[in-house]
């Protein structure tokens, strides 16, 4: 299952790249991410929680940053274990940044594989949430880029 899309945010590409590359900032921008822990400069663990209708999906995720080419590209691998549901989430993401002169276009492509019961139950749910998550990510990133400091990481997922 592949998700891709693009968002355009204000700011020079280098500045936007630094924000996106910063794990704490990135995690703050994604709704439902909590308990971010830096293992080392390229490995992180976190929890991800997403709600749809009355259902709540929670994952423990491990993120490995595979490639960083400042200010153009970030590649990462995500491995997730759902909490309560049998299955596994594996994803690779590629994020590229393009300078538009005062604005930056962020293109992302995420290839996700869901296995086990999570696959039949979670795949369409995840897809239906993807656009909402993209919208909130863009809004949060715009806030980050225009705010002087980043607020504390959210603890509660939003729908």
């Amino acid at each position, binding site marked *: 299952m592949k998700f891709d899309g693009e968002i355009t945010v204000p700011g020079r590409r280098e500045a936007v790249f630094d924000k996106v590359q910063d794990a704490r900032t990135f995690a703050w921008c994604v709704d439902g991410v909590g308990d971010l822990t830096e293992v080392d400069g390229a490995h992180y663990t976190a929890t991800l929680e997403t*709600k749809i209708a*009355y*259902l709540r999906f929670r994952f423990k995720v491990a993120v490995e940053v595979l490639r960083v080419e400042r200010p153009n590209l970030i590649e990462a691998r995500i491995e997730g274990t759902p*909490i309560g549901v049998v299955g596994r989430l594996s994803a690779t993401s590629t994020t590229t940044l393009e300078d538009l002169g005062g604005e930056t276009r962020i293109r992302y492509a995420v290839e996700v594989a869901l296995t086990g019961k999570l696959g*039949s139950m979670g795949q*369409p749910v995840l897809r*239906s949430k993807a656009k909402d998550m993209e919208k909130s990510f863009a809004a949060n990133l715009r806030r980050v880029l225009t705010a002087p400091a980043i607020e504390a990481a959210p603890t509660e997922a939003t729908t």
Partner: protein
Amino acid sequence: MTPFELVEPHSLREAVGALSADDPSVRVVAGGTALMLMMKAGVFKPTRLVSLRAVEAKFRRIEIDSDGALRIGALTPLSMLERSPEVKSHAPAVVHTLKTLSNVRVRNVATVGGHLAHADPHMDLPPLLIALGARVGIIGPSGERTAAVEELFAGYYETSLARDELISELVVPSQKGRRAAYLKCTTRSADDWPALGVAVALNDEGPAIGKADIVISAATEKPTRLVDAERVLQGKRLDEATLRRAADAAAAEAVTVADVRGSAAYKRELVRVYVARAIRRAFEQGVARA
């Protein structure tokens, strides 16, 4: 399992009172076939379940009203519809659809109201009920209202019902002079969740097709009416060229989504093939007499 409160009201009005407008962890349970799976999977942890098991028997009945409409209580088990002579004569496509809806154990327990309120787009009856122009009665803290089944579905597992509203009945208007069919494509066993469901209902206007209703599900995020395909059929005689144009229009307008049962592109082709088959199947059905 996390402990939760279980309440068993004796009326729907009382059940509404036990629900919460603000708390998504308070849910109603009727047959429980879907909700229990969610609880077992650990994606729903209720604080309170409002069981409808002890609610009045009048919500478990099937009647024909003076307008020839089928009135079905929300707590009627699906198997009761399957065996009902009233449903067979007024909406035979519903009986046909139920034959391969899950399995008999589920149909004996699952209720009409629960089937609709669960809002999983893979459900078989919603697209057919939309094509038949069905409505639901809804009861809430401020009284009763009705809504078209078509307006009920807001997205994956999401309905337009408020958290403290319940479906009280399903009303299928008279289908006199109409032909209807539901076809589904399953990629595993015949009673599996479908990769695509297609419902078609047609009005006869002399030798031509009058009003046409075409609704698909399972391949989409919610049951979806295919208006371009409907327009192709309206006022036309059914021939191969019309059928092909309707199928192409359906495939062009359907926004399909991928899941474990197939890619979006595969499902788009299924739409093209199955819409044509369902139209043909509906046309082959006798016109409903009641």
